[in-house]
């Protein structure tokens, strides 16, 4: 694992409320690196979130809205935030009451670092 990826993942996973953080190969849908919470499957999370990101990216491009920057899914039990610009995307699964502003800030930094 490169230093950039390792330090990016380390910062993300230490934000309060973050359960899991992953760097994912968007095309292949496989995890490049991950810090996973208890019971989480990195393979499943990577495959699902990469598919979600690719499909939404294609839809917004078809709709002439430009490229997809980030995708935030709010559910009854938490949040899934996916962001990226190139082949690597950053995925964070966070608790429902997590500080989303802080998480998004760290994700923006992570995306920039991975460019």
């Amino acid at each position: 694992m490169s230093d950039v990826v390792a330090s990016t993942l380390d910062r993300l996973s230490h934000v309060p409320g973050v359960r899991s953080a992953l760097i994912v190969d968007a095309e292949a849908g496989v995890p490049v690196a991950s810090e996973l919470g208890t019971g989480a499957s990195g393979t499943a999370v990577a495959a699902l979130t990469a598919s979600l990101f690719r499909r939404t990216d294609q839809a917004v491009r078809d709709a002439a809205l430009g490229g997809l920057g980030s995708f935030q899914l709010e559910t009854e039990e938490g949040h899934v935030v996916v962001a990226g610009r190139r082949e690597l995307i950053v995925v964070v699964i966070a608790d429902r009451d997590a500080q989303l502003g802080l998480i998004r800030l760290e994700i923006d930094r992570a995306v920039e670092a991975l460019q």
Partner: protein
Amino acid sequence: MRNGPGTADLQRWSEEVARDPGSPSFLPLAEAYRRMGKTEAALRLCLRGLERSPGSVDGHLLLARIYLELGDRERAADEWAVTARLDPDNFDAHRGLGFFHLERGEYSSAGRHLERAALARPGDPAVQEALSVLRRHQARSSAASRGAAATNGARSPEPTPPGTQNGAVAGSALAQPADRAETATPSAAALQPAAEAAEEPERSPADARPARGAGVRDPARVFEPLSTEAPFIGALLLDERGLVLAGSVREGGMTRSEALGAVVGPAAEEAARTAALLSIGAWRGILIETDRALLHVAPLERDLLVLVAAERGTPVGWALRTAERAGDLARQFLAEGGA
């Protein structure tokens, strides 16, 4: 929730389709590609499969869905029309055609297809809601007709809604097969969705639509109270496939409703699937940031969705608050419809 096909299934279908492009396996393979986001590949497979199996109802329905996701509603409507000819009671075909015509302001055809869809599946909430919208429009048109006649006397022509050929839902036409006559040579006005057509700034004196503030809720204006805030681009009430029921989105003088609807359907479907598979509870909202806009999508009751579009760079907190207000306006609109 049903799990998707495995690698072995995909390989088997691929081999069967490679041997015979018209093999029934083109359907699950194309559907799998569509779900994986490989829409162009799914389109090619479907077109090739239908060349060999032109009578495949499911093939035409899948092709319609692919075109819809690609934002090509004309071609989607063509495929629904073919499906309706092959299977005259097909719910999906009549539902798709009903929404297609409704969005174009072709109320007579919309009514015909939506009624047939309702006959095929009486409990479908989106179809019932669309019929409510249609009936409200008819009631307004009738009231406006009476008003115009009273004002102008016997010389006034019978007013018709924009893009409407017959001006009313023709119940007696239910037995007729789906036709493409009204869309063969559409007028420029008819090419606009109903919601956008109602936003034309210049109105002719003969236009029977109620004026702003006339006390009658226009589906295009449901979210108008939000329009005073600067980042707001528009909002839509959609069915789960992204077909527009109310609201409008215009950006840079251009209509964006259909394009945004095409984004929402796949995004919401994937979001629900992801939330379920990750076991993190039901989804409550999606925030999508693109190079040009900030979109928020939230589920409403009865499989409906509310989309709010704002300018790029809009604070997320504003978008979330506005999405809540848009949800309230949508619920109010649905309640007023007497559904």
